[in-house]
């Protein structure tokens, strides 16, 4: 999986190592700024309000 990627990168090994680091950093940035904020609301531990489980009148039920 990573071997073909390594072969795809141009240059000698220090250049390839440097390019790999840049690619990895790009993945981290993509995750931090876009992927993780998108999936975080779906995580059960990120729910910290009071709300009723079943539909019932009251202000709290308007909270998602």
């Amino acid at each position: 999986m990573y071997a073909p990627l390594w072969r795809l990168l141009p240059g000698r090994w220090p250049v390839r190592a440097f390019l790999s680091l840049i690619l990895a950093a790009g993945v981290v940035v993509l995750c931090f700024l876009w992927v993780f904020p998108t999936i975080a609301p779906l995580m059960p531990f990120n729910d910290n309000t009071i709300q009723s489980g079943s539909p019932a009148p009251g202000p709290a039920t308007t909270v998602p």
Partner: protein
Amino acid sequence: MKALRWVVGTIGELLITLGVLLLLFVAWQLWWTDVTANSEQAVTIQALERGFTHDAYQPDPSATQGPAATPDPLATLKNVPFGEAFAIVRIPRFGADYARPVLQGTDHETLGKGVGHYVGTAMPGDVGNFATAGHRTTYGKPYADIDKLRPGDFIVIETKTNYIVYAVQRHVIVTPDHVDVIAPVPQHPGATPTEAWMTMTACHPKFSAQQRYVVFSKLMRIFTRAGGLPASFMAVPAGAVG
């Protein structure tokens, strides 16, 4: 044989990648959300303070005729749009510098920007229950130390027109479906409110969403912005049990 080695190797690399990504997510959730939310909330506080002092509340001069000349300053807080910051909460027990924005609404996005106000509950200082929610961990964790509040501690809500001081009364730990804690009379749903309460809800235990730590406070004093807030209310009261 070669094909098998390739398949096993690829599965191994995938699993390692997945593990690294999960660790990254944990780091993002526990560390990075605090970094970004803290700076974002500090900017919101600055903007609120500027707005509060720049165009401080002035009674409308055209309304100075007749007995309705003294408009209720708290009435300016009606109809705050969802997601908008409208107040600053200061809690001496959490530190002299502690200040967090209060925003309208309690969805995931709003709670990342500060303390959320349950839509439909009373506004600060009003009779009823000014109910709020805040993160106990992550996203700037405004209510991280909610369990350190003691009866008698002051909660200061700063709005465009007033300083509203609540005093902590008691706390309960409930399951997340106990909507009665944000009822107009806390824990007495259906009762007609005659007093002004404030409710704070946060996750309990820390790093879990199993229960809610809920603190009830009662209105103590309301000061006008022009009159200022006496310094004694920005300190942990001597009578409060440490």
